[in-house]
């Protein structure tokens, strides 16, 4: 059974390699091959899942050791995998959503001449993501971690001819690299502390290390997680990443890759549990991002960027939950899974809308699309209800649990966290309703595009709608299924542990409060966008609105704080290198040249002056000899 793990990762990687190396010959079958291999992965995942279910809940762990990777003295890195319920959960999410999105992309990318490459990159992503969640040590995880970064880079910049896409891709990679430094340093710290960086020995011995070290490791892991999961302060890339094709946004920047940070923190739970300061920081980051993303999501007119803000915000929930420790891990993951379904559904819906609207992304130019795209409307609508936490749909269960866990933190902190999350829930309802209203309701507002083509909204082909439908089912039912008999909790408990906090607010009360704020948010949105026609051009808005449209000035800040000084520094150094470092060298050469030119003039051509030099030399020689004797 273990050997299937390697196969699971290998299938999509093989696909990527074949498609990239194979070249144009594979243009006609590439997408099918890639989808098939994704499906193979999914089937293998299911087989492994059934196998795990067959085991006792404590024995649900599979190991596979492929080969020794880097052996240098004490530094022993292996290519080895670990499949336990936590990674299994991810594997199932990744392969299922991944396969669906492969399927969807067949239709979505039908007219793109570089479709084969697109599928190769998708397969590459799948392989790397699986490697990330299946690795049994941090170094191998790092490989997957950067691998998904690479795939994300390639896919965001897939339409490279657009400078904005290329810039966004670069930005994503570099911001992630900043996070990766965190992961690097964390691994370095682990190695110097534990002499290893494999999960088991590190996590089992974590309590033996000093708290300062663990806090350091934790903070560095958090930095990594911030980069990958677009958490404040490394959140700036996610909005721009929407330049990529929509299936990519659905798969990578909503359902799977961006949640890797949550995986990392959950996986390293033992470290965080022993480092409360680091946990606090995780919680703070989660809370800040939760609000940050929500506010940005409220202001964006670009449908995908609005959804991206939402993604950030939802991951903020997960982060916050993961920061709470064993109270929250399970629910962080649960929200992660449900979010994977409904957010993928939302993005696919958005993609479907764009597909029918000549790739228009400005929601102010949609309106009334429900009549033109009934399936899209229905599936999008269901996912919408799931995310705003409509009772008994997926989001309701997972989000309520997190809010409850926040209250359970106890004391002032509990109240603050709970309050923030309720506020976030209201905002979620607000911005999602706004999207819904702007897109599917109201009057049609579309106009001819630059080339004069009037869009003719139409429903998307079957390859696109089927995945949407399936995801809609997931959005509706997953939460309920997980909550049934606490299925999910029992499944993950052996890995993450579970604690029941002591909440000052009853579980039911939280549910009611959440529903109430949800209704409030919906109402607010309707008040603003449902009652009256929406202007096709955005009003100027107040300062907060304008700031939110500019992603709360994050780019301006980064630009002022890093980019511009960096540019000056670089330019200054180039100047210095030329003038100073090289200048010293050239100056030395010039000095010799100058000395040469001057000394050369002594040779003036007059024999008598030569004789003077000789005479002087003789005198010197004699004098020096005598002087030597005198001394």
């Amino acid at each position, binding site marked *: 059974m273990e050997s299937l793990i390697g196969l699971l990762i290998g299938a999509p990687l093989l696909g990527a390699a074949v498609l990239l190396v194979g070249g144009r010959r594979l243009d006609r079958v590439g997408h099918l091959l890639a989808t098939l291999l994704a499906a193979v992965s999914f089937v293998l995942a299911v087989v492994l899942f059934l196998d795990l279910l067959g085991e006792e809940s404590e024995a649900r762990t599979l190991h596979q050791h492929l080969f020794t990777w880097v052996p240098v003295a004490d530094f022993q890195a292996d290519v080895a995998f670990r499949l336990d319920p936590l990674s299994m959960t991810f594997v199932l999410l990744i392969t299922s959503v991944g396969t669906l999105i492969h399927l969807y992309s067949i239709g979505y990318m039908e007219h793109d001449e570089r479709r084969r490459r697109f599928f190769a990159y998708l397969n590459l992503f799948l392989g790397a993501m699986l490697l990330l969640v299946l690795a049994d040590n941090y170094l191998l995880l790092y490989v997957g971690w950067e691998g998904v970064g690479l795939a994300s880079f390639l896919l965001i910049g897939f339409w490279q001819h657009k400078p904005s896409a290329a810039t966004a891709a670069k930005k994503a990679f570099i911001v992630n690299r900043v996070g990766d430094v965190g992961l690097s340093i964390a691994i370095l710290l682990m190695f110097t502390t534990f002499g290893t960086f494999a999960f088991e020995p590190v996590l089992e011995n974590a309590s033996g290390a000093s708290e300062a070290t663990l806090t350091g490791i934790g903070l560095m892991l958090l930095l990594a997680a911030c980069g990958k999961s677009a958490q404040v302060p490394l959140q700036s890339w996610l909005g721009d990443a929407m330049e990529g094709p929509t299936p990519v946004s659905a798969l990578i920047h909503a359902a799977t890759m961006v949640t890797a940070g949550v995986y990392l923190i959950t996986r390293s739970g033992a470290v965080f549990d022993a480092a409360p300061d680091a946990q606090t920081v995780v919680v703070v980051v989660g809370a800040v991002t939760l609000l940050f993303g929500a506010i940005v999501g409220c202001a964006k007119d670009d449908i995908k960027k609005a959804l991206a803000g939402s993604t950030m915000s939802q991951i903020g929930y997960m982060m916050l939950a993961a920061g709470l420790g064993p109270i929250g891990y399970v629910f962080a993951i649960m929200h992660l899974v449900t979010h994977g379904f409904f957010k993928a559904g939302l993005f696919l819906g958005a993609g479907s809308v764009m597909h029918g609207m000549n790739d228009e992304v400005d929601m102010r130019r949609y309106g009334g699309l429900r009549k033109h795209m009934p399936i899209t409307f229905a599936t999008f609508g269901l996912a919408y209800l799931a995310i705003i936490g409509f009772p008994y749909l997926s989001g309701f269960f997972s989000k309520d649990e997190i809010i409850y866990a926040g209250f359970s933190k106890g004391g002032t902190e509990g109240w603050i966290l709970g309050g923030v999350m309720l506020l976030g829930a209201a905002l979620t309802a607000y911005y999602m309703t706004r999207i819904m209203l702007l897109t599917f309701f109201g009057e049609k507002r579309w106009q001819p595009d630059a080339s004069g083509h009037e869009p003719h909204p139409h429903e998307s082909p079957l390859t696109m709608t089927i995945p949407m439908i399936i995801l809609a089912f997931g959005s509706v039912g997953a939460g309920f299924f997980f909550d049934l008999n606490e299925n999910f909790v029992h499944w993950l408990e052996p890995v993450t542990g579970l604690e029941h906090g002591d909440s000052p607010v009853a579980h039911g009360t939280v549910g009611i409060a959440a529903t109430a704020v949800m209704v409030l948010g919906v109402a607010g949105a309707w008040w603003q966008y449902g009652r009256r026609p929406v202007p096709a051009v955005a009003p100027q808005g107040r300062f907060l609105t304008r700031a939110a449209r500019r992603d709360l000035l994050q780019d301006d800040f980064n630009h002022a704080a890093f980019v511009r000084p960096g540019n000056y520094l670089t330019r200054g150094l180039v100047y210095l290198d030329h003038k100073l470092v090289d200048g010293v060298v050239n100056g030395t*050469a010039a000095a*010799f*040249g100058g*000395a*040469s*030119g001057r*000394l*050369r003039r*002594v*040779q003036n*051509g007059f*024999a008598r*002056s*030569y*004789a003077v*030099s*000789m005479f*002087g*030399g*003789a005198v*010197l*020689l*004699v004098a*020096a*000899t*005598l002087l*030597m*004797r005198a001394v």
Partner: protein
Amino acid sequence: MNPGELQAPVIEWAALSPSLIVFGAAIIGVLIEAFAPRSVRYTAEVVLGALALVSAFAAVVVLASDGHATSEAQVAGMGSLAVDGPALFLQGVILLVGLVGVFLFAERRLEPAAHGAAVDSFAAQPAAVPGGPAEREAVKAGHTTTEIFPLLLFAIGGMLLFPMANDLLVLFIALEVLSLPLYLLCALARRRRLLSQEAALKYFLLGAFASAFLLFGIAMLYGYAGTVSYSGIADVVSGDPASVNPGLAATMGNDALLLIGGAMITMGLLFKVGAVPFHMWTPDVYQGAPTPVTGFMAAATKVAAFGALLRLLYVVLPGLRWDWEPVLWGVAIASMVAGAVIAITQTDVKRLLAYSSIAHAGFILAGVVAVTEDGVSSVLFYLAAYSFVTLGAFAVVTLVRDAGGEATHLSKWAGLGRRSPLLAAVFALFLLAFAGIPLTSGFSGKFAVFRAAADAGAMGLVIVGVLASAVAAFFYVRVIVLMFFSEPKADGPSVVIPSPLTMSVVALAAAVTVVLGVAPQFFLDLASDAGMFVR
């Protein structure tokens, strides 16, 4: 022995055969000039010169293999000449250089034939006024100056004596015998005769000035020791005047006389090797003299003069080591630095090589300063290596010509590597050897000298030497850049295909440069066997 009875001098004919052969040949050469018809003089002189030098070299080899360089080293000629390792080694080098020099002198394919007669690089009628009717007539008649060959042989003879000189008298005579012919040779260029004559004038006046110093130094040393014999002076210096009349001990041993005299003699020799600050004649003379003469002079004079200097310092003045060592340090450093630095901005190939020779004099002095047997043999090796590189380089210079004769201005060498890659490559090899790049003879020599200096504790000298080498590398490299990386100019010079004579010179020099760089062991052995001076 009755007083008043004349004691016949004992002359070791065999041991002195190399120089005797050369002098004999020189005299025959003069006779040929006097009596043989003009048409056969050239052939006769060249054959005579070559034969004489080859047989003299053979004599040197025989002497060396008989052990005269090592166990059988002796003082000959009534104590005035030394036949020992350094002398024989340097004689061998000088003879080879001289032989090759004959080839260069005899080259007649470079100059365009004057009215049907092949001519060499020397003036048709040296006494004639440049550009005057007499000269035109001489050129028209196809006259050549075959007197150069006996002059050359006399100079070589003097050079053979110079490192052998074991008393001050021979030192002075040898100096003059080698110098006087060279003064004349410098004046004999066929082209640019004004420059040639100017070179001769400067060389002559300064040379005479320097030899006056040397002579006065000799007088003082004689005054100090009461003898002109090296060993006698050395005995006095080391405080053992047993062989001298004890009654006169009071007038002897005046240290001021010793120090001043020693310094002045040293100065005279330093002039010949072209060390700073007695170097100023070098660039002018090297530039003005006919290039074959420059090549010969640069190589052979330096060898001979360093031989004499070594013997003087090692045999006569070792007791004064602490006095002259720091002074020579200074001279060595000044030569290395000044030679290398001034060369950077030179624009004439021959002047460039002149400054380079000044810098090399400094490097060799570093080995001289070591005052060890290793030091001697390293200097011997360096001299052998250096002389061939120099000769080869000047031989190449004779080949690069345009309408006005040799194109010595560096700008004209631009792109030579494109036109004649092989020649340029050979010249580059010589330049790299000058620069001391490994796998060339220059490196082996430099390493030997520096190691000897360091061994003797002169690490400071080594460091300065190393830095000066770096500066020197700059201008060698500049020439290479010019030859290979610049576009050839339309009116640039062309490379003349020479006769086998010059060709063999270049080939031999290149071969020696490579062999001494890659497999120098045999020659190092020779040099180190030859490292002992006889007293």
